[in-house]
């Protein structure tokens, strides 16, 4: 035990004496949470649209004033002919064009039927469908309003309630994802370079001739980083609540416990990378570049997992961030208890133990 403690102390000195790296490790999560928490959202707001009004009458004007104040649209310019639409799209500014045909108002009054054409720039399919839906909803609302006085028989009224997130804030689904992403990257990277650095600097030899068991060396390396990560968890949670306005509806201690579990998993993963690589450069490249895109894309916060083809859905199961993202959503946003997330907790625990065992096993007691 004494041996173990002195090893932990040695690792602490390592970290504390490298001020620049420590600063990066503690500062990076803060910057990232704030930056991405605010900036990343899959909502579509302030999309620039153009209007081609061939009729210029009371009704088109009314519809235009319906569209203008919406937070989804910014009317950027007016077009004068069909040909201009393509030009407007090609110069890249406009996302949607609203076309009113000739005699819009007259058709609406005399035939009770008029047409609006929406042309979307579908090079971004997500934005295109969303914008078309928003615009349709606004036009439909307008239609409902002008027909209001003539009540029709056999009407179905629907009442709609938004659960958990009545203001439909994008942060509610993105902040848990950003939390998972930041913790994953920082924790994995921290331990990924520890073992391999000793190899590269030659200090590994000193440790290998000591009577310390590999198990102890590896675990002792994780302990100080776990404490660092606790600070990171605290700062991330504080920022999410007080800066990003995402509530913690569930039990705070459960959330912290789960975060520590996830952190341990990532630290263990970093240790595995570290004991199986030969140079710091490779270790960092794997833990940063290799992990970044898969974590972002396969953890489910950016793109829904249920839409992916089967092989990717299977692969996504080995991404720890996916499980943690689910847990955070359940506990933090929905306010559920341990009973709702015990399965995911079990999966993370299993991953953590597996990775830790693997890294102890891969830890070579002979130098190459």
């Amino acid at each position, binding site marked *: 035990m004494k041996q173990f403690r002195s090893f932990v102390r040695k690792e602490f000195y390592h970290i504390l004496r490298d001020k620049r790296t420590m600063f990066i490790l503690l500062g990076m999560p803060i910057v990232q949470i704030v930056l991405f928490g605010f900036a990343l959202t899959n909502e579509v707001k302030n999309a620039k649209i153009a209007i081609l009004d061939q009729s210029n009458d009371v009704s088109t004007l009314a519809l235009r004033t319906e569209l203008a104040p919406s937070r989804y649209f910014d009317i950027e310019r007016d077009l004068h002919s069909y040909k201009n639409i393509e030009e407007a799209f*090609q110069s890249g500014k406009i996302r949607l064009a609203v076309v009113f045909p000739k005699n819009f108002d007259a058709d609406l009054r005399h035939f009770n039927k008029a047409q609006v054409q929406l*042309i979307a720039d579908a090079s971004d399919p997500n934005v295109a469908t969303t914008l078309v839906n928003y615009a349709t909803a606004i036009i439909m609302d307008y239609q409902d309003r002008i027909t209001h006085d003539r009540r029709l028989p*056999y009407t179905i009224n629907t009442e709609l309630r938004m659960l958990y997130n009545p203001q*439909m804030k994008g942060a509610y689904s993105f902040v848990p994802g950003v939390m998972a992403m930041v913790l994953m990257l920082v924790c994995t990277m921290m331990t990924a370079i520890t073992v391999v650095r000793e190899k590269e600097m030659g200090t590994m030899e000193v440790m290998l001739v000591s009577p310390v068991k590999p198990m102890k060396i590896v675990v002792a390396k994780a302990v100080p980083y776990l404490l660092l990560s606790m600070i990171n968890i605290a700062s991330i949670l504080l920022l999410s609540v007080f800066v990003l306005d995402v509530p913690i509806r569930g039990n705070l201690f459960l959330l912290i416990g789960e975060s520590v579990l996830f952190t341990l998993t990532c630290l263990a993963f970093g240790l595995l990378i570290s004991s199986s690589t030969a140079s710091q450069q490779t270790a960092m490249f794997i833990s940063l570049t290799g992990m970044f895109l898969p974590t972002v894309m396969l953890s489910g916060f950016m793109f829904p997992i249920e839409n992916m083809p089967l092989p990717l859905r299977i692969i996504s199961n080995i991404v720890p961030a996916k499980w943690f993202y689910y847990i955070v959503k359940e506990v933090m946003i929905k306010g559920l208890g341990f009973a709702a997330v015990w399965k995911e907790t079990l999966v993370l625990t299993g991953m953590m133990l597996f990775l830790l065992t693997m890294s102890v096993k891969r830890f070579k007691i002979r130098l190459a």
Partner: protein
Amino acid sequence: MRTLKFLLQKEFRQIFRDPAIIRIIFIMPMMQLILLPWAADYEVKNIQLSVVDHDHSDYSRRLVSKITASGYFRLENYTGSFAEAMKAVEKDEADLVLEIPAGFEKNLVKEDEAGLFIAVNAINGVKANLGAGYLRSIMQDYNREVRMEWIQFPRFNPELQIDVTSSNWFNPLLNYKYFMVPGILVILVTMVGAFLASLNIVREKEIGTIEQINVTPVKKHHFILGKLIPFWILGLVVLSLGLLLARFFYGIIPVGSLLVIFGFAAVYLLAVLGLGLLISTYTGNQQQAMLLSFFLMMVFILLSGLYTSIDSMPGWAQAITKINPVTYFIEVMRMVVLKGSGFRDIMPHLLTVLGFGVVLNTWAVLHYKKRS
């Protein structure tokens, strides 16, 4: 000129004799290009629906089958209690709950009016919004059908109706891969440029070989050109490979001209390499260079409009996207590949990126010192 030739020879040997670099340059980007676009499908479909039917009437069943027939919804469960449906929502097994109250059919026929209740899991606001939107338009359709059965309509529409038709240009099948592949390709080219260039120079510092160069009569600009040109060529090679892959694997053939893409890429790589160079002059060892360039890359990628739309970001984040070279290349790639924009359309982008290149490279050259 002769000096430069020798330096280039040295750099290319160095790159091609390191198998790890070859793997990083060629295999990893290609793997990512093959795998990742499949994950990036944001289309809202397969919305999980849970129906609570208290009515069990002919009308309620018809409504449910109309909803499931639309293709957007998948009926997860059909229960008689709201509590059970809520449990499904908690377990993420249902996104939407439709509650049909008892007496739905009777009220609709006899009282001319009936209510329905929809609860949406709104944690993912966009999915919730779209799902509820689809459901409401199906409901309106259904309502219209019911009316038709009971009322003989006159020849003209009694209901005032605005017909909204929509068409999707440039990508009529709404294929998300057309959107993602050009973007991911940009990221890969950028990573090769910024990462490798900065690491390469820092490594010379770390292992001390830069001393040897510093004592030779090699001029500062020779040394820097010798470092930039190989990675500039490699970046263009990665881009060509990526475009080939996009063509044969995803069937994406640029609508615009390849000349525009490569012309822009040539200028863009200058800016990215300048960034790598700058990083290397400010850092002392590979670890710091890695951390710094990774941090910058992460910000650049996530704030480039690759995944999320720039229009929706808050003002200060939009300002960051303006000083982010990646934003410009992604926009240009999408414009040229999908819409066929030409040099005239991308001129503002090209000039901006050229400006970045000049500023970053000048800064880096001024900051690089030939003594330690």
